[in-house]
């Protein structure tokens, strides 16, 4: 019998705790496939965030370091400076990266820190029960924007990829989505490239992945995928925001 589909080696034999229809699981798989494809599992050191993906340290089959909320880019910097030949990546949500950890990500990018950042943007705080994130859309209802996000009160969504692309230090920034097969394939390519860049010492790479939170958006998994396509992508356009030579 020929095996046509199996679990990537870089994922551990542990069941995910993610809610049904949550695309965190798909993104984990893409990261693991990239690690397998590049054969870097032995050298990989992941930094897990605070958020729904806090247990990423149990899911990736490589050395892992848990960070405080938002501090993953600083922790990754410490690791990478000690072990420049290893492959260091962070996996962070939008609350983690764009809110409490905004300074850490900006400065890691400005230093062109040779790390790979997977930034999962689901426009909400998942783990703590659906509060407003810096990436929450105008008008979007969350527990802390119960009348819909009002920019006069709560400001505008932060477009992290566009913002980081203005920095001379950032090498590669791309926004992708995982709401359908075609886009998952594109996301896979981008994530792999972000790791490849590190292998080739190109420097800071960040892939922003538009992701779902059916539980806190109050939608079915399939409605969530449509919501990404219909509501998120217009605000967060996909594509390469910056790529160095």
């Amino acid at each position, binding site marked *: 019998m020929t095996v046509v589909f199996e679990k990537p080696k870089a994922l551990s034999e542990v069941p995910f705790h993610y809610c049904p229809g949550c695309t965190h699981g798909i993104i984990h798989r893409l990261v693991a496939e990239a690690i397998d494809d590049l054969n870097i599992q032995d050298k990989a050191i992941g930094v897990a965030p605070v958020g729904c993906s806090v247990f990423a340290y149990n899911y990736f089959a490589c050395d892992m370091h848990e960070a405080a909320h938002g501090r993953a880019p600083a922790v990754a910097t410490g690791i990478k*400076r000690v072990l420049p030949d290893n492959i260091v990546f962070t996996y962070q949500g939008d609350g983690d990266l764009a809110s409490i950890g905004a300074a850490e990500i900006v400065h890691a990018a400005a230093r062109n820190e040779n790390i790979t950042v997977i930034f999962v943007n689901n426009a909400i705080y998942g783990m703590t029960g659906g509060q407003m994130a810096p990436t929450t859309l105008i008008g979007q209802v969350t527990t802390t924007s119960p009348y819909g996000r009002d920019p006069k009160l709560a400001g505008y969504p932060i477009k992290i990829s566009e913002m980081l692309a203005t920095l001379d230090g950032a090498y590669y920034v791309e926004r992708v989505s995982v709401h359908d097969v075609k886009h998952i394939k594109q996301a896979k390519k981008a994530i792999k490239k972000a790791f490849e860049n590190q292998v080739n010492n190109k420097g800071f790479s960040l892939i922003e992945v538009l992701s779902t939170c059916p539980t806190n958006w109050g939608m079915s998994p399939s409605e969530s995928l449509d919501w990404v396509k219909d509501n998120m992508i217009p605000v967060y356009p996909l594509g390469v925001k910056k790529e160095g030579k």
Partner: protein
Amino acid sequence: MEKVLMKGNEAIAEAAIQAGCRYFFGYPITPQNEIPAYMAKKLPKIGGTFLQAESEVSAINMVYGAAGAGARVMTSSSSPGISLKQEGISYIAGAELPCVIVNIVRGGPGLGGIQPAQSDYFQAVKGGGHGDYHLIVYAPSTLQEMVSLTMGAFDVADLYRNPVMILGDGMLGQMMEPVEFIKPPARELPKKEWATTGCDGTRETNIINSLYIDPAELEKKVEELYKKYELIKEQEVSYEEYNCENADIIVTAYGTTSRIVKSVIEMAKEEGINVGLIRPITLWPFPYEPISKYADKDHVKVFLSVEMSKGQMIEDVKLGVNGKKDVYFYGRTGGMVPTPDDILAEIRNIMKGVQ
């Protein structure tokens, strides 16, 4: 070995380098700026890394990553900066990683001032960050001691997998004294088998973490930490006893204040008052034992805690005395350094009361 005249902050930096520290992450704040400047100059020339972080929060988290990767790593700051580092310090203590943190204390609270103080005692020895944990805290009183304690701190950190703090003050950081770089006897250290260095398949993957969602597991983890702290209390208490044998009054003081008290002891002798000094060198674990021993002696009438704070160490002194004698307090704060005359006047007053 040759003696060199150095500034306190530079002596700490050089001692760290000689102890094998190759990574330093910091952020500027007075009065400790000579430490990062020294590291920035020296580390790149010996294959190390100095990095000026964007904040103290980042600096300590870089330390967290580097310590997890198995390196000898240090950061330094002063009071407001150390407050920002507390988040990371709690995580490092929780994940049981070794590192050295220098606090060259200035007056507070808030932005406070830039003159020497000891008002971060509570923060250093009673927690500072969240959760049940301890740092090992050293309080040098001379530049020579700053050198030896800093050098030893890296071994102690590695031995116990625990963050170690060097608690100095602006006076010690800025003053100059001749120092000799003599390494304390090396400790036998375990291999860093827990480090996240990349797993080539020859071992299980390593996870550095302080999250225990199951309360029973977290309690077990904290109990284990406290077993380690008990061992540290048995092994690592350090203090100096000075002129205590026939003392009428025992003064407790550490760091800069203890130096001033030493001058007071000579001045008081001329007036027929016998003053002893117990000087904690480790603030945690605290030397309760010698304090308790002298509290039992008939010749000791009272204790006096002298501090550059509003009375923080006095709580530990009282625990050691355990109600057996009265414990008085003299302290200055805000960056004011007590003079020998101030302290002597206080001692005279107290002794009048007890005779």
